[in-house]
């Protein structure tokens, strides 16, 4: 009798659980495996950058982004290239994107805000640059 009651109670909870949660969660995502392809593209992009071929470097990073779409380090790399090219607006936007993707890594977010600070400084927005620098500091401290 008690067993029947237990089973009924558990069944009720089960039904309640189904009622409150209409959708079963999806299986956990596959673990993130660092990609050889992205690594080789990034290496090539860095060489291009050192050789002064900034647009070629940007093209390489964008090609890597098609493979690893939500990579904060890649967006940050692109942000730095745009900074070097003098495209400060894009540098800031790309850094913001990198920051939004890097929420798990404070160091990466700090780097993103550092780049934003540099872009703002270069475009004459000293107040904004200071703000960004302070934000970077906050994340560095965490």
């Amino acid at each position: 009798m008690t067993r029947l009651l237990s089973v009924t109670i558990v069944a009720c909870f089960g039904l309640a659980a189904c009622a409150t949660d209409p959708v079963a969660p999806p299986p956990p995502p596959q673990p993130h495996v660092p990609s050889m392809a992205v690594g080789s593209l990034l290496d090539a992009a860095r060489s291009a950058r050192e050789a002064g071929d900034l647009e070629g470097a940007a093209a390489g990073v964008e090609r890597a982004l098609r493979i690893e779409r939500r990579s904060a380090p890649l967006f940050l790399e692109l942000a730095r290239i745009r900074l070097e090219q003098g495209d400060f607006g894009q540098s800031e936007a790309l850094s913001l994107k990198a920051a939004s993707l890097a929420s798990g890594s404070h160091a990466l977010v700090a780097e993103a805000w550092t780049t934003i600070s540099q872009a703002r400084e270069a475009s004459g927005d000293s107040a904004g640059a200071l703000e960004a620098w302070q934000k970077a500091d906050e994340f560095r401290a965490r």
Partner: protein
Amino acid sequence: MATKRTGKKRGHAAKKSARKSKARRGAKRAQPSFTLKRILAGVALLALTASILAVFWIDRAVVREFEARRYDTPARVFAQAVELYAGAPLDQPGLVDRLRRLGYAQTAAAALPGSFSASNDSLQIHTRPFVFWDGPRPAERMRVVFADARIDGLYGSDGGAIALARLDPQLVGSLLAANREDRILLGNGELPPALRDALLASEDRRFFEHAGVDWTAILRAAWVNFRAGEIRQGGSTLTQQLVKSFFLSNERTYRRKAVEVVMALILDARYDKATLLHAYSNEVYLGQDGSRSIHGFGLASHFLFGRPVSELELHQLTLLVALVRGPSLYAPRRHPERATERRNLILRLMMEQGFVDKPQALRAMEQPLDVTGTPARGSSYFPAYMDLVREQLRQGYAPQQLTREGLRIFTALDPVLQSAAERSLAAALDGMEASAPLQGAVVVTGTDGGEVLAVVGGRDGAYVGFNRALDARRPMGSLIKPVLYLAAIESGGYHLASALDNASIALPLPGGRVWEPHNFDGTSGPPLPLFRALSESINLPAVHTALDIGPDRVAEKLWQLGARQSVKRRTGAYPSIALGAVDVSVLEVAQVYNTLANGGFYTPLRAVRAVVDANGMPLERFGLQLEAVADGGAALQINAALVTTMQSGTGKSVRARLGEHTVVAGKTGTSNDFRDSWFAGFSDDLLAVVWVGNDDNRSTGLTGASGALNVWSRFMQTQSLHSVQLLPAAGLAMRWIDTSTGQLSDPACGAVVELPLPREASIAALPGCDVRADAPPREGVASRTLRWLKDRFRR
């Protein structure tokens, strides 16, 4: 000279008048033969001058035409190149499909570029050399190993691992000039020797010896035709045929023939044989494909065999030459027996003239024609996508540049996705009952990167004409609600659990009229939480919210997110904008939802990745551009509500098709009187917007869910779907919310949904519910969800 002539004239005149006066004075002692001779001499001189002038004029015309034609190459448009790397989401059948689309031959050993061989779990691929936008890449041999529906590894011929490789991209069309001639130019040295030999053997044996016209050939042909009583042979040289093709009119008069002969002689004198042969190979008319004329062996090779001419074998090359004498007469798909006969005749001629030996010729004669099935129609395989390409290039390039200079245009088109989208639209529309023949449009983009992967302009994918995806503007309807609520949340006064007014309202309009918006089911009622107003697409709360924050704010937000052609910024918006009374194109909607899916980053959608000139020099690259236009936390809340829409809101019918485990986000839209059925939705990496309606704007009787969503889910089913991953945002925390009231709750207290909400928002708790915000999760399905969602935030 002039003086002499005048002197002569005066002399003439003097003599004439002397003669005349003599005649007048004296008896009829005229000397007619002397005058006649003079007149004849004058006429002969005039004729000679005229001829010399004519030759000069013809010479100029010939050279002008020849030089112009040399550079008349339409821009080539390529789809995106398939990238191969360890981890790529491509299984063996999928890669084989793409190789076949590229015309790769399946052989035993993949010995030549453009071939592959398959075994149980791996492929050997021999890629073609190709000049990409970032430089030329030589042919490469590689082994591709698969596991778990992905590429597991890529290995070179030395056994070493290859990090990344690209297949040559599929050629999807050309940008044609008004005369619609299409070409794939063969460069110097790209004419296969066997093709040249076949041409000489069958059309012009003495090409390298004569001076443009082969008199012996003409005589022989005349003799043969005379004997036969009909025209059996032509005596025209390749040079003469080249000349003929310069002119559109096909008049067969002696005068034309004479001009043609002169032109051929001039051409032959001015240019060397190799150049002429080369020009001929690119100029000769070989067939018709709908409204597209096929000129040149390069294009004919693609048209008939789906492969470049360098990969063809003897029996295929001779078939190409067979077309020269009669492109329609010997068209292999329509007249296979005749084509085979003519091909074999050419093989016999080649054998007789010593170009091939007997066994070679016999072997080739035994081969079937080997042409592919019906080719893709028209000048583009994907005309709707080409429209977008043209539009994107219109600003930076003059029409002549696009149609004449042989530019190479690299796009983001995914032909497999494009075909799937076309088929899904057609199949879904066929299955829908409506008062009139329905039409539709689809735009597919990636969620990141801002690239347009497919454009479907109508029910008939091959139709060249009005492009509904780009040019049809229809009322947005409920698709605007996410934009409206985004603006509301950003204004500071709202979040997902905010209670919204659901009371009926009557708004006075200028001119004395009154606007009385209704909910879909005509009801009104107590306040609703925002997430439900959005996921269930309730109208009255939307109107109240728009009035509260101001319609101009909604319009501004819509503009910022990407509807930049259709929306006026900042002023003049009506309250009806809350219900989507603004006309937009499907592409604009895709842009707007792309910004949402991106977490509030506006990335201008692009079809073209790069433009390269005929020599491979890069001209322009359209890189990734970003603009932060929405607050990340606000965007996250809206996206969470769009997920709810697909789980329990107006889009929940997809769960039957896509399965319970796939999490997608989307919004249904229905405009006034069911004239427009919309759906915009995305998975982790794919976004698609669908419109269904009637061209004459008649009511369809379809809602967004019953019409456009049908197309969308059909399309998404053809893809390997990945669940939406909502990125956490600073300042937000996941909370359990009671579905009816929007109050804080707990799974134990009733129907709840977990939503991201601002940490500092004060939300009333459900009365009688013990809200334990920090309590350890209860075991069970619900808590598993909780843990999974929390895992997301921890990353």
